């Protein structure tokens, strides 16, 4: 435990050291011109500062892992890990004796992410295909930046959009007439809006991947008398498949880690249901709700957020590593 504390302070001391380093670095720069002989010494110091800065990323990761693992350890001293990972009930109580099972949260997270991908992957891919294979220069010149604007909009904006526009619309025109639910916040609301958010992400990744397929393959298919769509469906996409799988995994990792859209659009009720018009909740929503307000860092109800965070971190990291690996292998194939 002492070691863990030491590491954490290390991260902070590192930051201070960098601040000091920057001052030294500026000082060093002025010295280079004035005292030529000092060049070697100064350069050695500057190099040290550069190396230090490049390790900040490692320190950040270490900080994340340590703070998550450390507090999760506390949590599991107070709450059984089997109940956490296999519990199907999420009912935190102020007076203690809470049920803190992750499964309903995981279900909500995966269900919403699935709907988001169902929206984003076809739209993003078709948009990318249209822009790279069909669109005229003018259409591309308008559509591409417009879709990129979607990527630049902060997630809180999407969250508000879910809350005030998409949620009520789905409730009034679908959920209530069909008798499927009464709530504006729902899996579908959050999933749809998150899907819109992911469109530019999927389309720009797909664009890169489709463009990496060599022109000679397209020529081969067209030369045999394929229509452009047959070329895309039967030659380009199968060739690009690994890259596309990687892109979808990256998008899934984004969806799973997304917070503001689900906080405002999905609801707070932990539930395991198939009805997409019902409000459900996610891991990220519960991290926010357990860690905002007055925190008592000895209560399992607060500490559970760290266990949730660690689970989230592990899932997204695994998805990213696999996705980046697949994409890299794919790129190498055509380089």
């Amino acid at each position: 435990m002492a070691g863990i504390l030491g590491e954490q302070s290390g991260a902070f001391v590192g930051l201070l050291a960098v601040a000091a380093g920057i001052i030294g670095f500026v000082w060093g720069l002025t010295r280079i011109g004035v005292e030529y002989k000092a060049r070697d010494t100064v350069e050695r110091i500057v190099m040290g500062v550069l190396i230090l800065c490049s390790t900040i990323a490692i320190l950040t990761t270490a900080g994340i892992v340590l703070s998550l693992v450390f507090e999760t350890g506390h949590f599991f001293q107070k709450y059984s890990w089997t109940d956490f990972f296999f519990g199907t009930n999420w009912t935190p109580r102020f007076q203690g004796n809470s049920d803190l099972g992750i499964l309903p949260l995981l279900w909500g997270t995966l269900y919403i992410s699935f709907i988001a991908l169902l929206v984003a992957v076809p739209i993003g891919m078709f948009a990318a295909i249209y822009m790279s294979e069909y669109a005229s220069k003018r259409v591309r010149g308008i559509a591409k930046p417009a879709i990129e604007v979607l990527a630049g909009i902060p997630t809180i904006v999407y969250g508000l959009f879910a809350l005030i526009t998409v949620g009520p619309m789905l409730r009034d025109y679908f959920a209530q007439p069909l008798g499927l639910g009464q709530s504006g916040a729902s899996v579908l609301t959050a999933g749809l809006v998150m899907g819109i958010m992911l469109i530019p992400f999927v389309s720009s990744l797909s664009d890169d991947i489709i463009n990496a397929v060599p022109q000679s393959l397209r020529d081969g298919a067209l030369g045999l008398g394929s229509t452009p769509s047959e070329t895309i469906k039967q030659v380009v996409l199968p060739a690009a498949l690994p890259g596309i799988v990687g892109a979808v995994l990256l998008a899934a990792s984004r969806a799973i880690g997304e917070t503001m859209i689900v906080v405002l659009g999905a609801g707070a009720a932990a539930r395991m249901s198939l009805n997409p018009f019902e409000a459900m909740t996610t891991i990220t929503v519960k991290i926010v709700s357990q860690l905002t307000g007055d925190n008592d860092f000895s209560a399992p109800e607060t500490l559970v957020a760290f266990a949730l965070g660690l689970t989230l971190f592990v899932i997204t990291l695994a998805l990213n590593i696999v996705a980046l690996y697949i994409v890299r292998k794919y790129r190498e194939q055509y380089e």
Partner: protein
Amino acid sequence: MTDLPMPADASRDATKSSLLVADARTRKRNAAEKRFRSYGAAAIGVALVALVVLLSSIIGGGAGAFRQTYLSIPVALDADVLDPKGNRDPAEMSKVLTLSYGRVLDAAVDTAVADGGIEIEGLSDKDIGGLISKEASAQLRDRVLADPELLGTTVETNVLVNGRVDGYFKGRVTMESAEADGNTSPQQLMLAEELKERGMLVTRFNWDFVTNPDASDQRPEAAGVGVAILGSLYMMLVVLFLAVPIGVAASIYLEEFAPKNRWTDVIEVNISNLAAVPSIVFGILGLAAFINFAGLPQSAPIVGGLVLTLMTLPTIIISTRAALKAVPPSIRDAALGVGASKMQSVFHHVLPLAMPGILTGTIIGLAQALGETAPLLLIGMVAFVREFPAAPPEGLFDPASALPVQVYNWTQRADPAFIERASGAIIVLLAFLLCMNVLAIVLRRRFERRW
């Protein structure tokens, strides 16, 4: 990738037919082609429609926040009530509570109604008094304390009108909804209508929305994003002063000096993975490391800035490295060739040339940080803050809000008037983002490749 059907009619004699006539199979395939193409066009259409609906719903909903209804009435500042000791000493006068000013204002509205000869059936005193915002009395108090000579005179005053009445003029509140609402009544709305006809009630541009601090649950009409803008600004300053130097230094090392070994590989993989870590995890890091461990205060821009710095670093490192990579090696060789050290060639020649690219990446990283919400929730930025933080550097440790968090905060309030405020805050946020992106584009255009 299903196999295409193989109909019997299409055999190799088909190829013997004229080129000028499309055979049945070709027609079918061309129809499939057209369908596929239209899916693509539809996908782009859906994305564009989503963008338009998103922006128009936010801008449509938030435009109202920039207009506010005011009542301009003469207010007789009764010296006996507001300065019981009669010595015009602000210190003494500050003992008079806001409540008394409320009474003075109520009387003024009563007089205005009576003078205007407005008679509405069932209009109660509560309706008349409730017409003006609870914030108005505090504003009047501030004004009198600043200028005690006003006492005893009658001053023309612009007072904020209650959020419900304001909502009525913006279409959010209707006579029907007022019927069921305990905070307003159809009579009150009719009164407002009468006053508007007499020109006493006006809805006009509301600059206060941008400069005012947040207001409590009961007075959405007074809430503004002033503190949030300042908080966001402070955090951006922290990010700018930490993330940019560290990010650039790290990029220079990795791109120009780092040997190709295990350790640098680890750093590389680390950076690309860090870029994909969910933002909320950075919030947990901030809470555990900066607040619980290092003991920095909650809700402080310095903590928000540190968290955003760590989040933005990968973005800045990735774009800076791309900018450095784009500088042709010939420039480095030229510098080395005249006897500069490797370090000098980088700092004197490569870095200045890569600067536009670095700036563009930095601005985009800052824009990302400006819109980030989730991690800030965990470090207490969501608290209700009415006081403006002091000037930096001390102000960095004062509690403040941030624009996106203010939006979240307002969505959690009961009064629907706050939704309008939230959308309005987003318009402010988007305006900032737009400016930053335009700046990035201008920089890129301006300095695009000079070699």
